[in-house]
């Protein structure tokens, strides 16, 4: 049964909010229960940003949780903040391009993805979040890359449709990177 609690965290400009929202949109499209909740307020500017997502086949009650199943960590400060919040046996995906230190916990699975490097290779640092999302899709195993692309198309609208291809590419490479 699907019941996944996710934290996505990083710098303000890294697109962590969008990552969470894409998952929630995809869940909505599949008639799953879902809930997305951002850290909001001035801290987002410049500082760190994070959001929490719940995806579940059951009714979702508490929108907040002390422990998540998966944490997606896009920068160093976020690792410091959220490492302890992963449930034992949970997973932590780490942007190894920006996170220098090692995860200290041993009761969780660590997946490192050098997302910035990969994105730079793709010629667009902005898709770093998609690389990471691709990696997570592989971990979550609920949504396909196409599910996300479908959502992205809607989110981008006409204006940014030319960006779909590079995003698809990023998702793909990301999903392969965990293997």
């Amino acid at each position, binding site marked *: 049964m699907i019941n996944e609690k996710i934290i996505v965290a990083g*710098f303000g*400009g*890294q697109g962590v909010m969008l990552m969470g929202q894409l998952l929630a949109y995809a869940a909505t499209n599949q008639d799953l229960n879902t809930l997305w909740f951002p850290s909001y307020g001035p801290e987002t500017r410049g500082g760190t940003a994070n959001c929490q997502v719940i995806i579940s086949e059951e009714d979702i009650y508490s929108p907040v949780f002390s422990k998540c199943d998966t944490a997606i960590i896009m920068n*160093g400060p976020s690792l410091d903040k959220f490492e302890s919040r992963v449930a034992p046996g949970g997973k932590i995906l780490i942007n190894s391009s*920006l996170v220098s230190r090692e995860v200290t916990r041993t009761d969780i699975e660590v997946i490192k993805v050098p997302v910035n490097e990969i994105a730079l290779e793709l010629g667009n640092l902005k898709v770093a979040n998609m690389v990471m999302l691709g990696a997570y899709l592989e971990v979550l195993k609920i949504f396909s890359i196409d599910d996300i692309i479908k959502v992205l198309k809607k989110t981008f609208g006409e204006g940014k449709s030319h960006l779909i291809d590079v995003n698809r590419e990023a998702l793909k490479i990301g999903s392969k990177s965990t293997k």
Partner: protein
Amino acid sequence: MARGRVVVSVDRCKGCSLCVEACPQNVLAMDTKVNVKGYTPAVAINPDKCTGCTFCALVCPDVCIEVYREKGGTKNG
């Protein structure tokens, strides 16, 4: 030989590049590495050309530039 010298407080810098644009001598440029805050900070790429005119410091919104000059001048513009 430079008449001036700037010291950028790298970890305070937010990479806005106002100083880069303001420098009449093209002393400054943006770095490619990110700092602790995730920004690419300003860096003196042509330190030799610096006149110590303080323009960069005057425009820096985060007060992260110190300027030194060979002979004394008016402090803080």
